[in-house]
């Protein structure tokens, strides 16, 4: 066991939890109407709580257990309730309890990302039931395939910190769920503007800082790999923000704060799968690609397809994650400043592997999400009543109001 690696992963775990609570919650909370802000915060908070228990009871075992004969597909149930793990158990160079915690924070943020698709109209009960089942059937298996020794790991898919595992699964499921749930009242022409862009910026800043734990923590060590992952992550975030702002300047003559921070998230989602294999120039390239492409898709989803993926989960995370997964194959090459592909693998070969991984992630997330939404909606209210939507979910679902002045 390495004390130094342990020290860094303890810190990284705190950083990644911080990304969701309060980072992502604020990021999303500022973008909705004032009457729905608490409901968004509550969604993120409640997901963090229930998924923590789900992770302990079953999901960690499915993701990182030893599935024996079926290990290609899942990790089995052997590690439920952390069976067999005590203070002294080690995973690599760190305590397994810590590895469990670090990975738990990923399991929390991934379904929390989906919140952005269904804000302002979903029933709270549905959020809880959906998130639990989604983590068990979509997230945990994909983790196992990519990071737990499953079939995508065997293929050699590169996904350093979760382009497929986190961003594609969340982004694609968000799109499916948004379509099934339907648009918000007034979408797209008469929506209310984000009630508190400053809150969104605070959340974005916390995501940026926390992402150091996400990507540099994924090195699972306090070494040069972590240092370089942090560097490229940061560069991509900055470039993504600049790229998005420039797109806005060209199109609207003004660069907005919300635009800049959205571009930052796009840059971060894009670099995530590649953050352990590319160099600084790769960081620049991926941030630029993420900013420009995600900006374009965001417009298309809303304006052309009229899909109310309310806070652009698919356009930013789904698209960014897929883009980064593909570009990782290219910018990993030493000629572009990367760490190099595995001996004997060509860029084109790796691109094929990456595409395979992306497709598996997209299809699995889409199909399973479709099925579980259909099934859950039979038992649990899916969308709130129109008058609750009008009044806002804070009062309707939680009996509270976000701002009291009188």
């Amino acid at each position: 066991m390495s004390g130094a690696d342990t020290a860094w992963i303890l810190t990284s775990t705190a950083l990644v939890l911080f990304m969701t609570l309060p980072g992502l919650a604020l990021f999303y909370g500022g973008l909705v109407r004032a009457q729905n802000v608490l409901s968004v915060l509550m969604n993120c908070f409640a997901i963090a709580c229930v998924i923590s228990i789900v992770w302990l009871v079953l999901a960690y075992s499915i993701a990182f257990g030893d599935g024996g004969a079926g290990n290609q597909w899942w990790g089995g149930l052997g590690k439920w309730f952390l069976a067999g793990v005590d203070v002294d158990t080690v995973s690599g160079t760190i305590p397994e309890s810590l590895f469990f915690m670090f990975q738990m924070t990923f399991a929390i943020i991934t379904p929390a990302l989906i919140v952005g698709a269904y804000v302002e109209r979903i029933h709270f009960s549905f959020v809880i039931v959906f998130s639990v089942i989604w983590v068990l059937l979509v997230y945990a298996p994909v983790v196992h395939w990519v990071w737990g020794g499953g079939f995508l790991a065997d293929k050699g898919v590169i996904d350093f910190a979760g382009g497929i595992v986190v961003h594609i699964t969340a982004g694609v499921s968000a799109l499916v769920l948004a379509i099934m749930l339907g648009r918000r009242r007034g979408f797209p022409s008469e929506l209310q503007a984000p009630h508190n862009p400053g809150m969104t910026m605070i959340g974005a800043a916390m995501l940026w800082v926390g992402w150091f734990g996400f990507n540099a923590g994924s090195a699972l060590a306090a070494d040069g790999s972590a240092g370089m992952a942090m560097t490229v992550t940061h560069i991509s975030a900055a470039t993504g923000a600049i790229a998005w702002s420039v797109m806005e300047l060209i199109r609207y003559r003004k660069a907005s704060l919300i635009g800049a921070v959205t571009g930052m998230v796009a840059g971060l989602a894009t670099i995530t799968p590649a953050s352990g294999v590319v160099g600084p120039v790769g960081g620049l390239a991926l941030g630029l690609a993420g900013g420009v492409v995600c900006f374009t898709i965001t417009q298309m989803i809303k304006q052309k397809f009229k899909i109310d993926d309310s806070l652009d989960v698919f356009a930013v995370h789904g698209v960014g994650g897929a883009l980064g997964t593909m570009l990782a194959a290219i910018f990993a090459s030493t000629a572009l400043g990367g760490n190099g592909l595995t001996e004997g693998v060509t860029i084109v070969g790796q691109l094929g592997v990456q595409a395979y991984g992306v497709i598996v992630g997209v299809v699995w997330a889409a199909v399973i999400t479709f099925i579980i939404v259909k099934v859950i909606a039979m038992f649990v209210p899916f969308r709130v009543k129109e008058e609750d939507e009008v009044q806002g979910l804070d009062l309707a679902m939680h009996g509270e109001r976000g701002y009291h002045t009188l």
Partner: protein
Amino acid sequence: MKFIVAIVKPHKLDDVREALTGIGVEGLTVSEVKGYGRQKGQTEIYRGAEYQVNFVPKIKVEVAVDDGLADNAVEAIRQAANTEKIGDGKIFVFELQQAVRIRTGETGESAL
């Protein structure tokens, strides 16, 4: 007595208040409102979507005055609030039947 309601641009509030106290008005009440009119709100952009904002922030000034002071007060507000740009606002004048000072119970003009 008259009751004057003026809708003015927010940054003109201090000028209006000074103009009114200048002519002897001792109290007034203001509130934040949003106006819709010839002056159009600026377009706001969020995530690449444009939001046309219909309402413009304005300040409502309410002041009760003696009949004798009414015309002066309207003129004072008009001059103080005027920028000669669209959206400068309106002044409305009402007949006020009764006024009471809560603290003392005084009524009529002495309550103002």
